[in-house]
């Protein structure tokens, strides 16, 4: 059993874990940098330890400092949150050596999923669909045609030694395949001195859909449906929602079963997320995140399941508190990431929050690490609050989100709240008619 958890993180996720610990009657230890001595996670934990200077590399990312903090506080387990050391296999190895529990998967699983190539190979082995590609180099137009016909057009001809978009050509069909193939080879030769090319399925307007899984050490693996995280800016998720409007129960159950079968095959432990691109009814594996995600509250809202509590249960060797049959999805949920950033330029806006008043009422959850008078340090990421809305259906959820944003008061720093206020009246957003490129287009359109 876990009796004292050290949270190797800061900000709202540290608070999230402290809350779960307190609700389980488990003591919590906050660690913090010298810049975070007035942070909310320090205030609310049972104990706190300053582990290093402001620099994350010397504090939140310092394995020796965190292990030493466990030693002096007697913490018997570490929750890594997300980011920082949450997907660092070496950290898990060292904790194992020191007999400190890690609330997360094994080092081996972190290692596999942290390596793009190994992860894709493992996904294929586990039966998870990946982006189809030629089996290595394609040497002739004729071979390219065979590959293209097999996987379906459009396809992407890519330089084997390539990068940065050079030596990369799209063939929309058989007609322009020869040209794309030849041009790509020529460009590849010119740019990289190597004309080897391979072919991959090209996704034009994919959505980002991810499946939440939870597994215990008794062989149980359950999926909790998907989250649609297509609204991204520079590969950063901005708004997440569940369920996705493009999946029906059958599609959800099918991809869910693929993921849980894979997790059983892997012998995975704890919570994790299998991320996919989704286009025309098909899923294509991107990566697996072997940790709790920022957007996990969206799933908590529609399933009623406390994911952090389950993480701790699993780390204690308990069974998941639910089976697949127990999981029902109810209503619709949206999370808005409130960053301390200018809502147009996305320039970070650290500073002191003069006024903080959070929205309340039915269907509103706030996961926030800030308060009136709190000085946001410039050293870390700019996520300060998450606003999670739950309602009966997507339309009601949008209406509730609108009213909640209207109640939100943060003065003293700029936030991304105005971005969501701009987004809400947009017809395409209202219709969930978007893909992973949509938000950047919307922002450029302004």
């Amino acid at each position, binding site marked *: 059993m876990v009796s004292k958890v050290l949270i190797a993180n800061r900000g709202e996720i540290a608070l999230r874990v402290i809350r779960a610990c307190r609700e389980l009657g488990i003591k919590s230890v906050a660690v913090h940098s010298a810049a975070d001595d007035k942070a909310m996670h320090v*205030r609310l934990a049972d104990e706190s330890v300053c582990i290093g200077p402001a620099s994350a590399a010397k504090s939140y990312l310092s394995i020796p400092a965190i292990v*030493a903090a466990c030693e002096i506080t007697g913490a018997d387990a570490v929750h890594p949150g997300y980011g920082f050391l949450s997907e660092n296999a070496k950290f898990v190895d*060292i904790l194992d050596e020191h007999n400190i529990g890690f609330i997360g998967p094994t080092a081996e699983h972190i290692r596999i999923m942290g390596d793009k190539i190994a992860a894709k190979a493992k996904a294929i082995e586990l039966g998870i669909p990946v982006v189809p590609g030629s089996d290595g180099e394609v040497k002739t137009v004729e071979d390219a045609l065979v590959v293209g016909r097999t996987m379906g057009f459009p396809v992407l001809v890519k330089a084997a030694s390539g990068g940065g978009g050079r030596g990369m050509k799209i063939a929309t069909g058989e007609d322009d395949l020869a040209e794309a193939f030849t041009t790509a080879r020529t460009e590849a030769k010119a740019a990289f001195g190597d004309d080897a090319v391979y072919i991959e399925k090209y996704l034009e307007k994919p959505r980002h859909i991810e499946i939440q899984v939870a597994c215990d050490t008794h062989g149980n693996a359950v999926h909790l449906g998907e989250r649609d995280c297509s609204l991204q800016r520079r590969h950063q998720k901005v708004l997440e929602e569940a369920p996705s409007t493009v999946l029906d129960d059958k599609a959800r159950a099918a991809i869910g079963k693929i993921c849980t079968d894979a997790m059983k095959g892997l012998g995975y432990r704890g919570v994790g997320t299998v991320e996919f691109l989704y286009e025309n009814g098909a899923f294509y594996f991107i990566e697996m995140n072997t940790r709790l995600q920022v957007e996990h509250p969206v799933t908590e809202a529609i399933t009623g399941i406390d994911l952090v509590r389950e993480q701790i249960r699993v780390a204690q060797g308990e069974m998941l508190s639910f089976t697949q049959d127990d999981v029902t999805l109810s209503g619709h949920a949206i999370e808005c990431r409130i960053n301390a950033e200018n809502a147009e330029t996305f320039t970070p806006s650290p500073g002191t929050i003069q*006024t903080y008043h959070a929205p309340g009422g039915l269907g509103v959850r706030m996961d926030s690490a800030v308060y009136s008078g709190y000085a946001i340090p410039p050293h870390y990421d700019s996520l300060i609050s998450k606003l999670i809305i739950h309602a009966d259906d997507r339309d009601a959820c949008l209406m509730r989100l609108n009213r909640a944003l209207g109640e939100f008061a943060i003065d003293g720093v700029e936030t991304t709240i105005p971005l969501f206020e701009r987004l809400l009246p947009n017809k395409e957003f209202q219709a969930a008619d978007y893909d992973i490129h949509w938000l950047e287009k919307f922002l450029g359109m302004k």
Partner: protein
Amino acid sequence: MAKLPSNKTIKDLAELLGETGLTEIEIETGDMRIKVARQGTAVSAVVPAAAPVAAAPEPALTPETVPDTAPADHPGGVKSPMVGTAYLAPEPGAGNFVKVGDTVNEGQTILIIEAMKTMNPIGAPKSGKVTQILISNEQPVEFDEVLMIIE
């Protein structure tokens, strides 16, 4: 008698103070001068009333017991470069590296901090006289915690 400015004018100015974050506004126009001020616009941090006191070892100084200079601000303070367990002696039973009153040379080991089973000798940051030892043997120490004073 010249007219007084209206309350509305002052209220507007007061609002302007808040909006601009200024602490004082003074206006002089013809024979009229108005000055409005609000003290402490620096917002004080909200302390959750029920937040449990962090158990981290931090001396709870009441005004009566504050020394002339708080250790954290003392110019001769030797701050811990890491989190870990402090040892004042090289091994159990042995004498301490230093005691109050000793004169030490820069670089001379004054204590050890153990972190992750590794013993890290901590050298004196400068030569001088040890005037205070603020920790006891085997005490857990945080980063930046003042361990000794060397003057």
